[in-house]
């Protein structure tokens, strides 16, 4: 069994607005999954449904092949979750907070918690209310990681972290987690950060997944193509795989996925004077898919 999480036909609406529509997703063990989307596209909603925080309108979620309902809670013992805005009880000290959380997770390792505290330079005796936003995020990480999760779900966790910590997290911690067999689902809008670590990419747009591919494959197969024409650009330009098109009088610039010989041949039929093809950054890929 390689699959850790599977989502089938998941839908969710808030009033008249449909946020997610028949979403299908499979997450395999031991990989880093990136979840991208614009603000309001439903990333947090999806994560909250996975975490059993809000119920879906329809559809099913399976954790380790077992269907989970909104009422279920035991599967969460194996999932570490870092929300966008961490919440703690301000009056607690860090030690009290860790002890409090430890009671919920059977796989909690106090030694790990201490290790991370040291790594993040957090003093156990400090009161939570005296922590900065960055320190709170570090504490959030500590709590999530000390529980030794099998699946780590991160909802834009790094936006408040200082650069060294962010780098440490993205480079070292994630590596350590992967080595330990932890699967990571990483939702962020700091797209460039994901580039270093992501293995599989999801892009949410218009309520559904517009991209569900291995990142390397996406990187390889997404290209910006610039075409120059003798006279004006062709009017009708409706090809599958063209994500975006920009025109000027006799030039066209498009993003194409997947870029292959077939696509090249189709474009050549328009008899461009010149054709230039270049690779894109993840950010550019993302923008193209959601434009």
């Amino acid at each position, binding site marked *: 069994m390689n699959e850790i999480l599977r989502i089938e036909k998941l839908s969710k609406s808030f009033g008249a607005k449909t946020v997610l529509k028949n979403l299908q997703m499979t997450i395999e063990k031991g990989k880093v999954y990136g979840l991208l989307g614009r603000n309001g596209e439903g990333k947090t909603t999806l994560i909250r449904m996975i975490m059993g925080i809000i119920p879906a309108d329809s559809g099913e979620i399976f954790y380790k092949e077992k269907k989970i309902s909104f009422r279920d*809670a035991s599967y969460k013992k194996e999932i570490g*979750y870092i929300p966008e805005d961490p919440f703690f009880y301000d009056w607690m000290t860090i030690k009290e907070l860790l002890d409090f959380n430890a009671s919920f997770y059977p796989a909690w390792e106090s030694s790990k918690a201490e290790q991370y505290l040291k790594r993040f330079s957090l003093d156990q005796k400090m009161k939570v209310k005296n922590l900065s936003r960055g320190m709170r995020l570090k504490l959030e990480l500590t709590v999530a990681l000390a529980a030794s999760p099998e699946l780590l779900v991160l909802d834009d966790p790094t936006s408040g972290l200082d650069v060294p910590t962010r780098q440490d997290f993205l480079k070292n911690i994630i590596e350590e987690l992967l080595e330990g067999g932890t699967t990571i689902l990483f939702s962020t809008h700091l797209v460039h950060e994901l580039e270093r670590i992501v293995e599989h990419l999801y892009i949410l747009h218009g309520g559904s997944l517009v991209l569900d591919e291995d990142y390397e494959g996406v990187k390889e197969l997404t290209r910006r193509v610039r075409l120059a024409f003798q006279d004006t650009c062709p009017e009708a330009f409706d090809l599958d795989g063209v994500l975006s098109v920009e025109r000027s009088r006799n030039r066209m610039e498009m993003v194409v996925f997947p870029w292959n010989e077939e696509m090249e041949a189709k474009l050549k039929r328009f008899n461009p004077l010149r054709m230039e093809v270049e690779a894109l950054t993840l950010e550019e890929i993302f923008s193209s898919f959601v434009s």
Partner: protein
Amino acid sequence: MWGKTFWKEWKEKINIFFLALVFQVIFVFLALTHSSQKEFIELLTLTMILAFFPLVGLLLGSSAFYSEFKDGAWAFLFSRPVPKWKVWLSKYLSLLSILLSLLAVFFFLSQVLPQVKEILESYQFPVQFVGQRISLLLLGVLFPVYAFTIAFSISFLSEKQFVIIFSSLFLLIILDLIAYFYQKNIFSLLPPTLLFSSGIFKELFLLLTVLVASSFFLASILTFSKADFSQPKKKILFFGKFLFLFLLISVAVNTVWIGAKAHFGGKDYIHSWQLFEGDAYFSSNKGIYKFAAKEERLKKIGKPVISFNPFSLAKGKMAFLAHRLKNDQVELWLMNQDGSQRKRLAWRSQSKESPFYQLNPSSCFLSPDGEKIAWTALPPKGQAPLLFWMNSDGRRMRSRPLAWPSVGYKNFKPEIIAWTENNNIVLLLRELGKSGLSFPAILIFNPETETSTILTERISRPYEIAVSPGQNYLAYCYRNETENKEVLSLLSLNPLEKEKIYIDDFIVLRGLAWSRDEGKLAFSVEKSKTELFLAVYSLKEKRVVSSKELSQDEPCLYPLVIDWIFKNQKLVLNDPCHGYIQVLDEKLNEEKRIKTPASLKKVLLLFALDKGVLFKERERARLWELNLEAEEWKRVY
């Protein structure tokens, strides 16, 4: 998890706990420094019970999810690997333990403050209607927990604590009003005798409270477990839907329970009893009965009524007052002693054209020949009570206000206690609004001449007034202020003469009993908590002809009932506290002592019959006849 949650909630709310403790310390300080001011202590205690602790409950409940919800951080709660209902329940129990701890501290402190302890143990808070009370102690626990549960149940519906607090207060008031109107109307399902059944109001009050609180409890825990918290309006609707459903179920359960009670009759109760011409008449929740003593035959002669006042019996007729508790109406009825020809003569009417407009009959009496009937009626406050009289067939009704400025009291309640052979109606005037332990006067009224004579002595111990069987004499007790002594006095009603029988410094008159031939009056007085004095006064000789000291091991709060037996030659007396019946000879020496069987619980002597003595069990609606010769107990009812 449970332990950590308890610890966490206690630590989070420790300020509230300590603040509440500080208030309790202030309370103790005030109680100690004002220990001589009983009313002040009473006010303090009631404030703590009825205001302070419910507010603490409200505060604790409303703040339950405040820290998690104020910044929309409820997602944190739900992301934990704990079922949501456990999260809810652990919080509920933790905060409830804080409230109960505070209550426990208060009740513990009250044990060392005697006055507060007395108030808590003895005060009975009126629930509704007559005779039904709930102890302050019970209310002191119930009300704060109830307020806490309501506030807790809605605490996650808003992020703003003040909204929760005010909503809770609003709900408490609305629920109280709804419960009041529901109860008032639902009682129409109950027969009037069941309304008087002890405990039903308290049961209903407790049941409703528990059901309503449970409805909130269940709706809340369901909403917490199943609702979508990212959509506040949907969450509130979800809660409202389930709350409505559970409240409907509660009302249905309550109504079914009342229906079952109505159907199965509830606890029986004997309201009043009367001896007439050697037969016993009594009313219970099951009906009006006559026990013909000679034949030893019990016969039901009328449908059940609630009748607090004694019946009036004369020449084959019987008059009584029936109380309709649900609308506080009293009706005057007349029937034959075999139950036939029952008719209603007077009632409180809402019609201005009626002669009984807003007049509740308060006492009734038949003339010795049974041809006439008189009754008193109480109008709304501030107006003089009325005396009505008419023929038993309902004709020639007359009335007259009873107002005597010389009496010196604005509000009094007259009670007819006798109608003499020479056609004098004898009334007692009780003070309204007081405990009824003194009368301003005895009034003699002649319906033919419509004239009256009044005695202005203050009469103490009104329950010791005894009219002789032929209604020619009245024995009563009063306080002689000049000599500072209690006086037992005899009033001849026909002709009108007064005579003092006994003057002494006794504490209380315990019992009075006329011999059937009106020749003797036996009485007992309590000289101290453990000394009783029993005497027989002869009307013929106009002196006390025999007396005896009786000692008792410990004081007894109940009247010592005595009566004449064996053709007025001997006395039977019953001390309800000591479990035995004594038979005394003419010289008041104990001739016989009969122990009350343990299975009968405590018994109250009613009166002597032809062959035996009639007793009522104090705790149950049962009547027993004791044959004093054979020493056999026979159940009559």
